[in-house]
């Protein structure tokens, strides 16, 4: 690790309205990014209070990893898993469990989840990043162009390399832990005992979205649902690894900061890939909750994206479908969001529907799989084989106050989670490649 002697602590505090777009950057034209019912805005739809903002000392992802249930390398957890398979627990057949492991073949091989903290990377990542020939190696100058050209090029490359969508935003320490700093003493993003350090030139964040296979996701909570969740991360991270190689190949630096423990949610919201929903996670206007994110930090100057507003904040006030889907009531049923954090793992300064992360992580630990039932149940999760969904999305965005009715209709029409006894039918269905059908984006 690089030793960090001096730290630019001025960058650790919030220097602008938290949730507003950063000044001093170029923003790209947002008019063609989304259909007419999605507005581009200059600040996120979540209310924030700059004087109250509390820096997270741990994020929910870290916590769920710490309490991760399905880890056969640990004897107690292996026994739990073996019991479930042997007892014929619905959703835990041997093929279900094996599919879950297989769905994260590369994602889990690329990172080493050890004792709960993401502590390092395995050899596979070194091998992956060898597969690139930099301009320096080829003896040619690096690529040069405007910020807009760079963003357009990266977007095209990302989609070619498997991303469902990308968004660009600025590195903003507001939402990150007190141990994350900007430091001119490091040449590349660096993790050390003192914390995580980013060099000042690395100020651009690329948020890479990966699709979640909807039908397996609907089998949450359980091994099949978890297989979908893992597959979503694998999609995002596979695309991200390749995109980082592309960026290196044109002569710039690119680093995966999600796997350094940086929570992608605030960056995905700032980059306009979705809004914060009642479930305290990102809801995309295209993919609902069936999307997962990876984060790249780069020094390639990019034209940034703006946050979006598709009426979700009002929609979530009355919908509550995710809260009903949660097996442990970890999601708020209150009509309005709150400034008051819930439990030791949520933090002040934003008005959201705080989720009881402790309940969620404890459930994940005891269930033996990642849950994601809230994400899979969201009313905005739809495939796009009928024009009805496009109609409902635009109605939902423009008349969000009727969301209780939409959620009722959603239940009546049978959308949402698949009951346990019917989950075996997943193995009988003729599903699309990677389980991903069209979305409103296609």
């Amino acid at each position, binding site marked *: 690790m690089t030793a960090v002697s001096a730290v630019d602590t001025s960058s650790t505090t919030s220097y602008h309205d938290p949730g507003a777009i950063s000044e001093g950057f170029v923003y790209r034209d947002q008019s063609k990014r989304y259909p007419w019912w999605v507005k581009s805005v200059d600040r996120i739809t979540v209310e924030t209070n700059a004087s109250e903002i509390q820096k997270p000392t741990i994020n929910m992802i870290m916590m769920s990893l710490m309490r991760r249930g399905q880890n056969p390398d640990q004897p107690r957890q292996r026994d739990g898993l073996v019991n479930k398979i042997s007892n014929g627990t619905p959703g835990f057949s041997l093929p279900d469990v094996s599919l879950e492991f297989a769905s994260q073949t590369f994602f889990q091989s690329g990172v080493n989840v050890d004792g709960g903290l993401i502590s390092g990377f395995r050899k596979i990542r070194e091998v992956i990043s060898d597969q690139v020939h930099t301009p320096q190696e080829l003896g040619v100058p690096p690529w040069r162009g405007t910020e807009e050209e760079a963003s357009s090029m990266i977007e095209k490359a990302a989609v070619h390399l498997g991303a469902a969508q990308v968004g660009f935003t600025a590195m903003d320490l507001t939402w990150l832990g007190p141990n994350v700093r900007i430091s001119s003493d490091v040449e590349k993003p660096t993790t050390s005992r003192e914390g995580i350090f980013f060099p000042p030139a690395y100020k651009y964040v690329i948020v890479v979205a990966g699709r979640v296979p909807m*039908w397996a996701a609907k089998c949450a909570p359980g091994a099949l649902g978890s297989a979908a969740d893992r597959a979503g991360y694998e999609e995002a991270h596979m695309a991200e690894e390749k995109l980082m190689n592309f960026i290196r190949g044109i002569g710039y630096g690119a680093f995966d900061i999600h796997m350094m423990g940086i929570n992608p949610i605030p960056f995905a919201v700032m980059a306009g890939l979705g809004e914060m929903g009642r479930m305290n996670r990102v809801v995309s206007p295209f993919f609902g909750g069936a999307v997962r994110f990876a984060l790249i930090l780069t020094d390639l100057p990019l034209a940034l994206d703006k946050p979006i507003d598709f009426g979700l904040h009002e929609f979530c006030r009355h919908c509550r479908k995710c809260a009903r889907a949660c097996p442990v009531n970890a999601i708020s049923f209150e009509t309005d969001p709150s400034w008051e954090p819930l439990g030791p793992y949520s933090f002040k300064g934003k008005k959201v529907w705080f989720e009881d992360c402790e309940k969620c992580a404890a459930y994940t630990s005891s269930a033996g799989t990642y849950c994601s039932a809230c994400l899979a149940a969201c009313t905005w999760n739809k495939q796009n*084989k*009928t*024009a*009805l969904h496009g109609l409902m999305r635009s109605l939902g965005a423009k008349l969000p106050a009727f969301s209780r009715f939409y959620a009722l209709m959603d239940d009546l029409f*049978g*959308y949402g989670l698949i009951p346990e006894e019917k989950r075996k039918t997943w193995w009988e*269905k003729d599903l699309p490649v990677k389980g991903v059908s069209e979305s409103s984006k296609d």
Partner: protein
Amino acid sequence: MVNLVLGLLTGFAAAWLLLQGSNQTWYVWVLFILGAASTIFSFDVLIGSIKEHEKRAAVLGFLFFVIPGVILVGMSWALVFSQ
């Protein structure tokens, strides 16, 4: 194929109305167009939802749109006959 059959049927029905002469009142046309649109949409919902493996949505969505569609088209025809 189903879309083609539907298109032909709708086209035929529209042609038939036209053949009834130009003296139809405007609301006959409004009723007919709304009914035909709802009927066609019901088939889109049915076929799309089957492709999505959403059987319940397929059946309910179809009924939700086809019933008012057929009623509206029926009303427009009833008005034509009553003249």
